[in-house]
């Protein structure tokens, strides 16, 4: 699994499903990838400076997967992610300053500094977190979808997880349960070919993750996760299927993380050449190149987009820095809630 795997065995040709590409849409996808990349690069710097602590997992290299995967969702759809989730939070519209403030341990953070990088949550934006137990968010996604099904709401719950999570019981239990109960969950595997230091082929007996859908009687798809258009197209198809049939779908995007697993990881387990080969497929290089070839982008507008992303991130750092640390006196805040009054006739 060490070779870059374009959509060769995708069973789904990106070109066949790529929507007509409006220039504005292309620019939006690129702007989002740039924002995520610049945000994470800056977060890494802040980590080195000691402003961010704990575990910091960066998705540098995986932007096309996150951007394409979220582009196909409606604002009302729900999203559950794992701990490598800065991109998903930003793409659901959580302001960069709010994410940064969370990682700085400030009151302006989305969880008032209680969660940090791994536990970003913004319920208003229907971003449900942020889970650091591998596979830990998956049952929650099934439950969100169950509520939508019972309340006859048209939403899809997108559940993002890594290839490592496929080995957890939760993955199999959740695919089965969601299929059995006919729940609108999009199971989205961001397959970056490694679970920490363990390569896919060393943790999966049958490493074609999308095929595992068959065991639960649901649709499985695979897509080149380094191609933002392919990911968006495939995800659109999958989301339409989920919304149309009410059944879960499993989609696997093959991608790669360019940096170590976390800032703690000495990255001793993979070959530098392998990393270098994947970097030639960097979506922040290949996508602008394609857009340029198609006449949808010139160097000047690329520079502008990049500068805008960088400026937004700088602004976020400044705002986060200016917000006060969450006071220790607030330690016991939000431990128990107000009594809930059940609305009459709910679910009846």
């Amino acid at each position, binding site marked *: 699994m060490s070779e870059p795997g374009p959509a060769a065995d995708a069973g789904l040709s990106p070109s066949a499903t790529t929507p007509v590409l409006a220039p504005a849409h292309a620019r939006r996808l690129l702007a989002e990838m740039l924002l995520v990349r610049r945000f994470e690069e800056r977060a890494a710097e802040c980590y080195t400076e000691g402003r961010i602590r*704990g575990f910091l997992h960066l998705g540098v290299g995986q932007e096309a997967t996150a951007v394409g995967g979220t582009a196909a969702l409606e604002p009302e759809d729900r999203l559950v992610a794992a701990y490598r989730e800065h991109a998903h939070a930003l793409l659901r519209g959580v302001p960069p300053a709010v994410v940064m403030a969370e990682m700085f*341990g400030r009151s302006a953070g989305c969880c008032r500094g209680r969660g*940090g990088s*791994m536990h970003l949550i913004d319920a208003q934006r229907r971003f449900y977190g942020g889970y*650091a137990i591998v596979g830990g968010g998956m049952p929650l996604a099934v439950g969100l979808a169950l509520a939508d099904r019972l309340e006859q709401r048209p939403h899809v719950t997108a559940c993002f997880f890594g290839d490592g999570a496929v080995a957890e019981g939760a993955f199999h239990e959740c695919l089965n349960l969601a299929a059995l109960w006919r729940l609108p969950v999009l199971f989205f595997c961001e397959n970056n070919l490694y679970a920490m230091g*363990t390569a896919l082929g060393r943790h999966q007996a049958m490493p074609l993750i999308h095929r595992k859908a068959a065991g639960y009687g649901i649709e499985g798809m695979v897509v080149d996760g380094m191609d933002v258009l392919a990911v968006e197209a495939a995800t659109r198809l999958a989301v339409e299927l989920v919304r149309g049939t009410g059944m879960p779908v499993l989609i696997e995007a093959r991608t790669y993380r360019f940096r170590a697993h976390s800032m703690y990881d000495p990255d001793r387990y993979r070959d530098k050449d392998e990393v270098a080969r994947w970097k030639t497929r960097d979506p922040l290089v290949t996508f602008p190149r394609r857009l340029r070839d198609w006449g949808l982008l010139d160097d000047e507008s690329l520079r502008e987009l990049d500068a805008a992303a960088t400026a937004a991130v700088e602004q976020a750092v400044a705002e986060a820095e200016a917000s006060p640390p969450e006071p220790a006196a607030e*330690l016991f805040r939000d*431990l128990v809630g107000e009594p809930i009054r059940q609305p009459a006739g709910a679910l009846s």
Partner: protein
Amino acid sequence: MTYREAVREALREALHADPRVVLIGEDVGRYGGAYACSLGLLEEFGPDRIRDTPLSENAFLGAGIGSAVAGLRPIVEIMTINFALLALDQLVNNAATLRHMSAGQLSVPLVVRMASGAGRQLAAQHSHSLEVWFAHVPGLKVLAPATVSDARHMLAAALADPDPVIICEHALLYATEGEVEPAAGFDPWRAAVRRAGDDLTIVTSGGSLPKCLAAAEQLAAEGIAAEVIDLRCLRPLDLDAVAASVATTGRLVTVDEGWRTCGLAAEITAAIAERSFGDLVAPPARVCTAEVPIPYARQLEEAALPSVAGIVAAARRLVVPATAEEAPA
């Protein structure tokens, strides 16, 4: 040597000593262990004995149980105690029960190692101290090495035990340095007096020991002589050692990084109240982690965890009024 090196040396020694010993866990091989405890062991012992696993805690812990029943001497590493919750079923329902439930036909000579504890701003899903969950269960034994020497020797003692033994290593201890004492006469099942004193007894374990020793040092400067007892083994508890100390000091402070409610400190306090009621001259005190999921931000995490200042204050409250009473009017 460091605590981490001590763990690694102990693993290497065990693998050399007995061909039935295998190390099973996530990233123990190629990666070298999440805390680098098994770095180099894959190269030395090969992939049959140093077994990287998928993220399937309940399955590989259960496989450890089965292989122990069938004659191997597995050491299962669970990356952190938080993830051990995904293996709780196998640990509690199988490992702990099989000897008794089978009327002695089966035994499970399994060792499970895991990192525990907070202090690195890893937030609520990577920071908890759940040792007492295991210590609650008959059929399990629980060790908590607090010193480099204990980290070096406890593994062999655990492997020599015919029943499942869980070793909880506090993550903040891995980088600490210390002396390794000779193995002769090593007994991990007994508590150790880490500092002698006769004004009060501070009982603790694992990652809280350094804090308690620092507190005892401060108290000494104020003229209060604290005895610091390191439990070392959380099940079975060496209550004799605690009671013997309380017989001299009459005062007990228990320090635990777990939560207070139904926790380790609650058990120590209750047990001493039952058996040493007459020795106590002051109500026992507990210093535990605040009853919140451990938060990320540094100032919040620090506020949640037992601190040296908090231990000193608790000790002072027990000793100072009593001293005032004893002093001539």
